[in-house]
């Protein structure tokens, strides 16, 4: 049981002492001793640590592999992991860790309510009732009737299991993609 003063988010107990962890962006090259504090060194190029830690090594930024249809959305830095996204026309498939081509909606879907926004999850085009949960297994959407792509993006929150933002590869009449997938 760590004593109250040695709060576990920024401190750790070592040899009975309450020592300071390394702050985000640094790794612990040496733990504290009876007479010295922890030694923290900055993460190297292409590495990061996003939290206070006792790690002896930083994490490596993932590769936004163009060979899987990915591009860099946020390069990441010593405290924040790199973010990738699929290039337009593709959406991230968590199952196979690749960018899958957005399927085409059948013409019938597009003509029926051209002004509405059809949200299309993975490879199924589905019409969503107003504020109804979508047919996807764990995605929650609200159905907006709107004409402007950017407004739809801001107002619609797409949650996946890992709290990532999933692109709205919507079936606009012009087939324009308004959001970015974040694998």
């Amino acid at each position: 049981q760590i004593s109250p003063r040695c709060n576990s988010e920024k401190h750790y107990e070592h040899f009975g002492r309450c020592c300071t962890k390394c702050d985000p962006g640094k790794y612990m090259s040496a733990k504290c001793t009876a007479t010295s504090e922890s030694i923290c060194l900055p993460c190297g190029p292409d590495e990061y640590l996003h939290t206070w830690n006792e790690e002896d090594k930083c994490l490596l930024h993932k590769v936004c592999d163009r060979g899987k249809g990915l591009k860099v959305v946020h390069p990441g830095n010593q405290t924040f992991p790199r973010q990738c996204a699929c290039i337009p026309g593709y959406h991230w498939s968590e199952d196979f860790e690749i960018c899958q081509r957005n399927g085409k909606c059948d013409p019938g879907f597009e003509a029926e309510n051209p002004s509405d926004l059809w949200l299309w999850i993975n490879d199924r085009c589905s019409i969503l009732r107003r504020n109804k949960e979508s047919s996807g297994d764990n995605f929650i959407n609200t159905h907006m009737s709107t004409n402007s792509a950017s407004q739809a993006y801001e107002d619609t929150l797409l949650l996946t299991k890992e709290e990532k933002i999933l692109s709205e590869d919507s079936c606009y009449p012009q087939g324009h993609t308004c959001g970015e997938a974040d694998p």
Partner: protein
Amino acid sequence: LTINGTNIPTGSKKVNLSSWYHDRGWANISNMTFSNGKLRVNQDGFYYLYANICFRHHETSGGLDTEFLQLMVYVTKTNMKIQNSDTLMKGGSTKYWSKNSEFHFYSINVGGFFKLRAGEEISIQVSNPSLLDPAQDATYFGAFKVRDID
């Protein structure tokens, strides 16, 4: 650890395989703990991790959803201290499993040498779990400690 054939998830989505035998047949475990479907490291050290996953489909199991499949395994490490999960190893293949063939089979093997810390957990994810071969000589994974961390 060998797959518990009686408790394999269905579907083709990527799933976490959490139902393994750790004490039956070829499965054995020591100095590590198996709980909540994950293999937990008890001692810091350098470990060799490996996994062998077999997928199969017999025509008597009904048609496949698609003939174009991607059969994959991911071996993941979870570090609770920094709330981080990352894939250590992945393997697999895209496959064209023709509907005209009676039987299809494909095995993946991955292995690698990793520094692991006490408290870290190893887990297995696969795509297309319903195609998994449930035999103990087909679908299994494990780890053994090679030496301490200097």
